[in-house]
C-alpha cells in the first residue's frame, strides 16, 4: 500500500496526505491517478490489443481513401458482385462499386458517429444518474421522472419531428455534412442516456451508504469529490459495458435513421447502411454483408477490451 491515490475504502481513515506522511515516501516522483491508470492499462494485454486494432481502423479510414484510390461511388455494372480478388480485395457490390473503398469511406462516418454518440449518452447518463443517486430526495424524483419520460417517448415519431424541426436549420448553419453529423450524434446520444442513468443511480444509491463514503464524509472530503473520485470509479463496470454496447447500437441506429430520411444522404456508405443494403445478397455475394458486419463487430470488441482495461486500470482496489 504505497500508492498516493489510495481511496478511502481500503484504509478508511487515511487521506492520501496522511498516508504519504506515514510511509515517508515524499521523495518518490509524484504519481497521479491518471498516470497510474495508464501504467496499469498498458499492462492489460487485451486492452492494448483492442486499442491497437481500433487505432489501426481509425487510421485506415482516415488515410486509407488517400492511399487506396479505387472510387467508392463509381457505378460500373460490368463489375457487379465480383468476389474478392487482387483488384477488389473485398469484392464489389451489386452496382459494381469497390467494397473496400466503400468500407473505408463509410468507416470514417460510422466510427465517428459511434464514438461521439457513445460519449454523449454516457456522459449525460452518468451525470444525471450520479446526481440523482447521490443527492437523492427531490432532485432524484425530478430527474428520474424525466428519465421515465424519455424512456416512454416513442422514438420514430420523435425522430420525424426532430428532422422536421432542425434539419433545414442545421443544414444552413453547418452545411449538409456537418449539420447532419451533429444532428445524428446528438439525437442518438440524447435518446440513449436513460439506461446508463438508471444504472449509475442504482449503484450510487447502494454505494453512498457504504462505509468508505461515510468515512470520506467524516474526514471532510467535498461532496463533488466524493461523487466523482470515490463513488464513480466503483460504478465503472456497468458504465463501461453500457458504453461498449452503445457504440455498436449507435452504428446500427445511424443506418436506421437514414431510412427515416434523417441520416446521411443515401450516397454515404456507412457500415450500418452497407450491412442493411447487403442483407438480401447474403447468398449471392456474402462479402457484401460479411465485411461491414465484421467491422462493426471488431469495433465493438475493441472498445469492450479497452473498456475492460480501463476499468481494471481505474479500479482503486486493483494495485499493480
Amino acid at each position, binding site marked *: 500500500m504505497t500508492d498516493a491515490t489510495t481511496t478511502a475504502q481500503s484504509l478508511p481513515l487515511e487521506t492520501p496526505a496522511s498516508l504519504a506522511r506515514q510511509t515517508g515516501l515524499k521523495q518518490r516522483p509524484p504519481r497521479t491517478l491518471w498516470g497510474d491508470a495508464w501504467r496499469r492499462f498498458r499492462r492489460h494485454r487485451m486492452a492494448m490489443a483492442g486499442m491497437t486494432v481500433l487505432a489501426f481502423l481509425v487510421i485506415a479510414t482516415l488515410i486509407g481513401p488517400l492511399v487506396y484510390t479505387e472510387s467508392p461511388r463509381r457505378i460500373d455494372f460490368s463489375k*457487379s458482385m465480383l468476389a474478392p480478388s487482387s483488384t477488389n480485395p473485398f469484392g464489389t457490390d451489386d*452496382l459494381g462499386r469497390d467494397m473496400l473503398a466503400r468500407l473505408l469511406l463509410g468507416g470514417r462516418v460510422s466510427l465517428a458517429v459511434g464514438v461521439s454518440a457513445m460519449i454523449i449518452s454516457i456522459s449525460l447518463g452518468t451525470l444525471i444518474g450520479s446526481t440523482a443517486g447521490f443527492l437523492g430526495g427531490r432532485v432524484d424524483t425530478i430527474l428520474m421522472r424525466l428519465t421515465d419520460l424519455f424512456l416512454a417517448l416513442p422514438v420514430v415519431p420523435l425522430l420525424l419531428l426532430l428532422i*422536421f424541426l432542425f434539419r433545414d436549420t442545421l443544414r444552413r448553419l453547418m452545411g449538409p455534412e456537418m449539420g447532419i453529423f451533429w444532428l445524428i450524434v446528438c439525437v442518438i446520444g440524447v435518446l440513449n442516456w436513460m439506461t446508463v442513468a438508471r444504472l449509475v443511480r442504482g449503484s450510487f444509491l447502494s454505494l453512498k451508504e457504504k462505509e468508505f463514503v461515510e468515512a470520506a464524509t467524516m474526514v471532510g472530503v467535498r461532496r463533488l469529490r466524493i461523487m466523482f473520485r470515490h463513488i464513480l470509479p466503483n460504478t465503472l463496470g456497468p458504465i463501461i459495458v453500457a458504453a461498449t454496447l452503445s457504440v455498436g447500437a449507435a452504428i446500427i441506429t445511424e443506418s436506421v435513421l437514414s431510412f*427515416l*430520411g434523417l441520416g446521411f*444522404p443515401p450516397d454515404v456508405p456507412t457500415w450500418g447502411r452497407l450491412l442493411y443494403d447487403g442483407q438480401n445478397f447474403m447468398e449471392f455475394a456474402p462479402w457484401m454483408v460479411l465485411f461491414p458486419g465484421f467491422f462493426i463487430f471488431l469495433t465493438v470488441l475493441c472498445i469492450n477490451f479497452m473498456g475492460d482495461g480501463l476499468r481494471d486500470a481505474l479500479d482503486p482496489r486493483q494495485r499493480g
Partner: protein
Amino acid sequence: MHRNAMRRTFARLGWLLAAVLVLAACGAPTAPAPAAPAQPAAPAEAEAEFVPTRGGGDLLRILYWQAPTILNTHLAVGTKDFDASRLILEPLAAIDADGNLVPLLVEEIPTLENGGVAEDLSSITWKLRRDIKWSDGTDFTAADVVFTYEYCINPATTCVNTATFQGIASIETPDDYTVKIIWENPNANYYKAFTSTNGRILQKAQFADCIGEAASTAEACQAANLAPIGTGPYKVVEFKPGDVVLYEINEFYRDPDKPFFKQVQFKGGGDAPSAARAVLQTGDTDWAWNLQVEASVLTQLAAQGGAGQLVIYNVANVERLLINFTNPDPALGDERAQLSQPHPFLTDHAVRKALALAIDRAAIAEQLYGPAGSPTCYLLWYPPFRSGIDEYFGDDCPQDIAEANRILDEAGWVRGADGVRAKDGVRLSVLFQTSTNTLRQKTQELIKQWWEEIGVETELKNVDAGVFFGSDAGNPDNIGHFFADIQMYTTGAAELNPISHLCQYTSDQASQRENEWRSPNNMRWQNPEFDALCEEALQTTDTNRIFEIAMALDGLIVSDYAMIPLVGRPRVAGASLQLRGYSPSGWDSEMWDVANWYKVD
C-alpha cells in the same frame, strides 16, 4: 398491331372494351425483361383434363408484405385492404388484363349497341343477375347498389372511393334488378361507378345503420367492417387486423363449381424480399404480392428457386422525375416555391433537356428493376397508346452525355473550377429527393453520377414514404410542397382513360401556399397549350378525339421536359408452380379472379 387499326377499334368500342391489347398474364410481350421471367402458368395440355371442383383443394396461402387492416374497401387505407376484400366484396363488373369489362353481378355489360348506355351518354343502365345471393343467403338486389352509393357519398362516412361517384345526379331503380345511373353531364367515362376495385357493393342489410360517423364508431359497424357479408367466392372465418385473414367457401356463391379451395389464408407483414423467398424458394406460400425486390436478387431467387415463378402484368405506373419550375430556396421565406418565384435554372429548357439526355433509362430498367421495369420515354407506355419497347422506348430518348454537354455549353452554362457549370453566378446544383426505398436510392445514385458528368452538382435526399406521400399542410417534405429541385416517384392512371390523370398537371392546379400545397400539379408547371387541350378533353365525348388528346398531352409533357419518364413499371407477383387459373389485371384488384384459381399436384 398497327396504331391506326388500334385507334379505330378504340373509337368503336369505347374506352374499356377497346383496349384489347394489354398483355395477357401469360407471355407478356410488352414487358420486356432483361432476364426473361418464368412463363406464368398456362395450364399445359396434359393437365387440361383436370377439372377443378368446388372445395376440391385444401388451403390457398396468399402472402402480402403489407397486412390488411380492414375488409370494407370504402374505408380502406391501402391496396392490401382492397385485395383482401376482393375474395368477399365484388363490384358489378370487373376489368380483365386486356381492359375488357367482365360481368360479375350483372347479366351483361351495358354498351351503346345494346342500349344500356344512353345515346347522349346521360345515363347507364345495369341489369342485375337475379340469382345472386349474399353469403348469408339473402338476395342481392338493386337496393344494395343504391345503398352503396348513399353510404359512400356521405362525407362523414370517410369513404375513399367517392371520386368514382362524382358526377352522378341520381340512381334510379325501376325494379329490384335494374340500376339506372343518371349523370349530371354527359359522361364518356360511363363505366366509372361500381366497377373494378373501387366499386364494391355493400349489403344494405348489414350496413344500413352505418352511414356517416357511425361507419367507424358504432360497434355493429366496426364488426361489419372487419367481416362484411359479400357475394364473392369466400367469406371470412377469422380476421386479425394487421396480420391475417382466414376465409372459407361462400356456399351461396353463384358458380356451383367454384371456388376450388376449402380455405384461404391471406397473411400479411414482413418485407418483399422474404415474400419472394417464401414463394420462389421454399414454397411456404402459393401467391406473393408485389415483389419489389432489386433485379439482381429477384432474378437469382427466381432462377434457383424451384418452388414458384414470377407473374408479370401491366399497370399504367411510370417512375418519373418531376421538375420544380419554382424556386425552393428557403431564403425566400413565404415566397418559397410560389409561382411568382421562377426557378433560377430549371426554367431553362436547355438545362431540363440536358438533364434528361444524361440519363440512361435502359441501364436503370435493366440493372435495377429487371423484370419489374422497362425503360420508357413516355408516360403512356402501355396499350392501347403504345405497345412494345420499340414504340415506347425505341430510339427516342437514348443517353447522350456529349449532346447534353453540348447543349449546356451552347446555352452558356460554363464549367467552373469545381466542375460545376454556372451562368451569371447561378450554379447548376440540384437537390434531388425521393421516398426511402432501396431501388429509388440506387436510381438516385446512378442519376447523380450521370448528372455530375455533365457538370450538374447533385445532392441526394430521401424521405420516409409516410412523410413523403403525406398530405398534411405542416409537412415540408411531402411531394406537394416539393421543396427540392427534382423529385422522383411512381404514379399512373388508375383507369384506361388517362385524361383525368394527365390533366392534374394543368396550370391552375399548381400546388401553392394558398391551397396548402394540396393541388396536384406540384411541379408548378405552366403550359397554356396543355391547359387548352385538357379543357377540350373535358368537353368532348368523342372517344377518338380523347385518344388523340391523351397522346398530345403526353407528348407535351415529354417534349417540354416537365416530367422525365424513366421506367414503366409492370407489377410483379410470385406464384407457386402448382397454382393455375390466375390472370391478374392491372386495371382491377390482383385478386379479381381468385374464384378461378386452383392447384394441381
